[in-house]
């Protein structure tokens, strides 16, 4: 559809992937989970730990236990000695950025086997952590004193979208219901009992219009993927999906700086990913769309071009996200029901890999060729988009 712009499309593959089955892990330090998932992802790939020469992670959130040099801390704990290291931190979308950056690094010859890992005790971390996107200094001193939080930031976007386009709470609720239906199929999902729209609407109102069941779960977990060159991938245990498209973009930290509360930066990260893969929304039949909250999904579907502006409510009501719908998403149950320990992006990438390998633990489509992954970090602050291809 458009030219392949400045991304080495198809030169690398994700040859190993592992999502920790942990969901509640009190007293388990996140670095332990890094070790577990790195070992398992490398075993999945059939690559020995001493072959790893590139490493990426983001572990700066309090429940991730890293401090300023967090990627170095995790590498030290695990015992990695990479010649290429990446600590890009764009919140929940970080793992997608790490994959894109790893492909660029491998294509440039900086390294050949990259491990990307993530772990957090989002649920059980024993130390208090403020729920702010910034502190009351500099830009934050004009916003933090008013008590904004993650959910209220997303609620502001929801209110504006509903006002502008007429989306109803029961339509948002249907997103949570569909994710739970997929989680029901996934033995490792955090919550598996089916719910109804009425259940969502009857759940505790937290910050209007978002209720408790409009919010993702809060888990303790982790995951890792292994990225390597197409040449090296031939000699791995199972091979894996090719990275065809990638894009990333930033929006804002302070909510008063967001140009349009109904449009995320996926407008740009998505365009870049589609352009580099040489495909468009019509070519995608399954996707992993970051679902920190129901509204995150609604905004992203329109911003990526899967649904015309203002029509996402009807798309949801019409079953568009269901197993036989136009675009099944979050086929493992998503962050809303399966796993969200702080940065969902890693789990979204892993589920895309499983989907393209035909082994989703939730709802498996019949031999999909492509899977789009979109991560949203912070408070609609930044996005990254990947397009993976099964390459059968």
């Amino acid at each position, binding site marked *: 559809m458009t030219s392949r712009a400045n991304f080495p499309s198809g030169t690398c593959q994700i040859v190993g992937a592992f999502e920790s089955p942990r969901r509640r892990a009190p007293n388990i330090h996140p670095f332990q989970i890094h070790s577990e998932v790195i070992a398992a992802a490398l075993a999945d790939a059939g690559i020995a730990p001493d072959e790893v020469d590139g490493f990426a992670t983001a572990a700066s959130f309090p429940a991730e236990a890293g401090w300023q040099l967090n990627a170095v801390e995790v590498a030290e704990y695990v015992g990695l000695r990479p010649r290429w290291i990446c600590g890009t931190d764009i919140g929940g979308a970080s793992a997608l950025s790490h994959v894109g950056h790893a492909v660029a690094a491998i294509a440039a010859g900086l390294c050949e086997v990259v491990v990307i890992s993530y772990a957090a005790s989002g649920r059980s971390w024993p130390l208090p952590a*403020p*729920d702010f996107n910034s*502190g*009351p*200094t*500099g*830009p934050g*001193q*004009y*916003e*933090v*004193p*008013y*008590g*904004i*939080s993650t959910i*209220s930031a997303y*609620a*502001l*976007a*929801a*209110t*504006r979208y509903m*006002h*502008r386009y007429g989306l109803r709470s029961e339509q948002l609720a249907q997103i949570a219901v569909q994710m739970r239906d997929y989680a029901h199929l996934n033995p490792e999902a955090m919550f598996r009992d089916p719910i109804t729209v009425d259940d969502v609407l009857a759940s*505790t*109102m*937290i*910050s*209007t*219009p*978002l209720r408790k069941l409009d919010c993702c779960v809060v888990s303790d977990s982790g995951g890792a993927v292994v990225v390597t060159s197409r040449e090296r991938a031939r000699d791995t245990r199972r091979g894996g999906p090719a990275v065809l498209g990638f894009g990333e973009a930033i929006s804002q930290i*302070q*909510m*008063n*700086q967001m140009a349009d*509360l109904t449009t995320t930066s996926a407008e740009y990260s998505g365009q870049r990913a589609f352009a580099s893969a040489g495909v468009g929304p019509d070519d995608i039949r399954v996707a992993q769309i970051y679902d920190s909250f129901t509204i995150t999904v609604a905004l992203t579907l329109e911003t990526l071009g899967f649904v015309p502006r203002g029509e996402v409510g009807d798309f949801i009501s019409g079953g568009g996200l269901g197993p036989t719908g136009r675009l099944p998403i979050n086929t493992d149950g998503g962050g809303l029901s399966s796993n969200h320990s702080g940065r969902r992006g890693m789990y979204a990438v892993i589920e895309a890999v499983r989907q393209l390998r035909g082994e989703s633990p939730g709802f498996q489509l019949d031999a999909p060729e492509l899977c789009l992954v979109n991560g949203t970090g912070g408070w609609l602050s930044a996005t990254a988009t990947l397009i993976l291809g099964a390459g059968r």
Partner: protein
Amino acid sequence: MMEMEAVLPVRDALSSIWFDAVAEGRLLVQRDPLTGKAQMYPRARVVGAPDREPEWVEASGRAKLYSFTVVKRSLHPQFAALTPFTLAIVELEEGPRLTSWIVDVPEDELRCDMDLVAVFRQIHPGLVMPCFTKP
């Protein structure tokens, strides 16, 4: 212990100009001397044009409600006792948006794009901030 300090503004030389005005009941915004475009939050330089310094101007206080959420539950110990409160993004007549509170407006009267005017309220002990209400 340190909870309230964690949400109170840590003033610097630039922000003190704005907070000192707020304490006098005046709402300042900044303006690009070249294009006349207003900007908030306050910065040392014009957004996207760090070669220019903005000038301070007093805002009219008139605004429209861009978006809002009534916070019913808060995990912040500093804000849990204040619930419910109406968090908002307001769009000033001059163009920039502010994060703020809507005060003295019942929940069922809140509408995006409704007209608002600035009022100054003590939202924490010792901290007066601009809030907005019906004209």
